[in-house]
Structures are given as C-alpha cells and as structure tokens.
C-alpha cells in the first residue's frame, strides 16, 4: 500500500486557527490562473475565464483572483491558502468542465491536504470522558479490603451451568412457586 511511500509525509487531522469553532473562514486566499492566449493547450482555461470566472469572483469575495497571460507556455493554476500552503496544478489540455471541478476542489480544501497521508480520521481534545475502562471499573469496592485468598472472590464462577444444575434450579423454582401459591391462599 501507499504507506510504504518513502517521501509521503504523514499527518494528523488538524484545522488551522480553530476554524469552524466560532465561524467558518474560507481557507483559500488567492488563486492565480496562468494561461496562453493563443495555444490550444489553454483552450479549456480560456473558456473558464470567459464563462465562469466573473461569477466565481463574485461568489467568493474573500478570494483574490489573478490572471496571468504568458505567451506559449502551458496553463497552470496556483492556489494559496491561509496557512501558507501553495498548491500548483497543471491545467494543460484540460477541458472546461474538468477545470471547473478542479478549481472547486482548490476552493473547498484547506491547504495542501493531499500532500500528506492521514494517520487518524478523528481528532479530539478529550479522549475519555467517563474514564478509561480498567478491570476494576464497576466492580464492588469490597474487594479492596478483602483478605485474600477468599473463597468468595476466588470461586470459579466462569464455568457454564451444567444440565444437572439447570434441572435443579428448575426444580427449586417450581418449589418456590408452589409455596407462593400456598401462601396466597
């Protein structure tokens, strides 16, 4: 599996600046679209700029959008996040819809989340609230002052009930119920 990847960092679940505790802050701060005005490889990103970019900027007023035309070079998108992460993504020969989806991913993620393998999928400041379980949890504290060995605590009560015992218990129960009937009269 990918755990054996030497150069992949591992990480725990974190959110920058307690995000979401009070209010939510969009973590994408700046996005730079680099493209060529004439080459075919930039076709998709040019379509995106013509059709969707204004709406994107209107819907995300907290995100700074830059356009960087450059002659005869392949298109790329660079996203910069509040925690200082910078994600570079090639948009060469990607279609309009693909670019829309990738930019949505860049907008919604918080930093370079795919750069590290998550070790845990949950983070908590309070790992145990009722106290971790021990063998003495919910046990009678009588054991604390008992003088051991004690037949009461040393008895082996883990063996299952035998058929004979079950029969005898049924018999005893029957006797008890008979007595109850008698007393009821």
């Amino acid at each position: 599996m990918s755990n054996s990847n030497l150069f992949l960092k591992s990480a725990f679940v974190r959110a920058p600046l307690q995000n979401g505790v009070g209010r939510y802050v969009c973590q994408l701060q700046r996005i730079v679209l680099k493209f060529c005005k004439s080459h075919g490889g930039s076709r998709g990103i040019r379509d995106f700029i013509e059709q969707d970019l204004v709406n994107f900027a209107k819907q995300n007023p907290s995100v700074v959008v830059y356009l960087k035309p450059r002659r005869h070079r392949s298109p790329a998108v660079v996203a910069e996040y509040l925690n200082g992460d910078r994600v570079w993504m090639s948009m060469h020969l990607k279609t309009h819809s693909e670019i829309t989806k990738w930019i949505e991913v860049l907008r919604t993620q918080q930093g370079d989340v795919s750069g590290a393998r998550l070790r845990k999928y949950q983070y908590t400041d309070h790992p145990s609230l009722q106290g971790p379980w021990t063998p003495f949890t919910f046990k009678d504290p009588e054991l604390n002052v008992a003088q051991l060995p004690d037949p009461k605590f040393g008895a082996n009560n883990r063996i299952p009930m035998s058929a004979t015992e079950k029969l005898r218990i049924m018999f005893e129960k029957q006797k008890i119920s008979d007595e109850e009937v008698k007393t009821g009269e």
Partner: protein
Amino acid sequence: MIRAGLQRLASVFNSQGGIISRFITQNAPAQHRPAEETTKDVISTCNKLIQEKSHRNFAIVHLLGKQWRVTDGDLLVVEGYWPPNIGDKITLDKVLLAASKDFSLIGRPLVQPGLVTVTATIISKGLSHTKTHFKKKRRKQFMRINFQRSQQTMLRINSVDIKNSINSAPKNVF
C-alpha cells in the same frame, strides 16, 4: 453454586431495560425502595445534572456507515462522496448514545429524536493523497497498478446538547 445461579436468574428477571442503563451514584445509593421510586430518582438526578451542565457531553453518532464518538470541538474526516459543502452547518441526527460523565443514555437503536442535538460545521472538502493499489501474482504474468484519490470531508463538531427532559414522551418529529 445453585444459589448463585438462582441469584443470577433473579437478577435477570428483575432488571428492567430502561433508557438509563447505568447510573453511577456519587450520592448515597437508594436501597430497599420500590423500583419505581428509584427510577424516578435516577431520572430526576439525571435531569438535574443536565441542567447544571456539570460536565462535557459526548455522543456516538452514525455517519455514512460509521460510528463516531464525538464531543464539542472534535474534528472528523469523512471519506467518500458526501453532498454538504464548506461552511454548511448540519445536525447529526442519528444519535446512538449520548452521555456525560455520570450517566449514559443508550438508544434502542437511536436515542429519541429531539432529545440530543449534535451540530457540526463543514470545514474542508478535498481529495486524499494518491493511494496506490498494486497487485501482483507471482509466476502468473499478472500485474496491475491503480491509483486512487478519495474525497475527504472534514467536520468540526460544534455542540453536543442534551435536553433536560429525559423521561418525556418522544415527539418523533425531525
């Protein structure tokens, strides 16, 4: 041995499966009293504890086929396609268990609706690192390599609230 078995039987017959399965009394235990009064006492004490907000609550919620133990301020990462988008505030309604330090409310299988409110905010939606699926069978000329990135949604748990009306009838309204 027989006596022990009888006692075990008696305990089985006497135990009543209520919503409050376990209650650790820090106060003096109420013994030699009818079961109804004890139940009432336990419920009122739980309600008092909830009202005082003496301790942090936690809950076990069912979310996309997994069960998570959550408390205020937790972070969860949910894998796979999930519609909620960033900034959304949602309520996690499938609560299997809600508890505080001194009592637990265990649902059968869910705690009654409206009793426990777990709210969360979506923080981040992204893709995981590239996972490599490498398969090879020796001496069979078989080798496959697949790459996969799953969608990950990060949640912040905002609050786990228990209403202090444990014994009131459920309204069954979401």
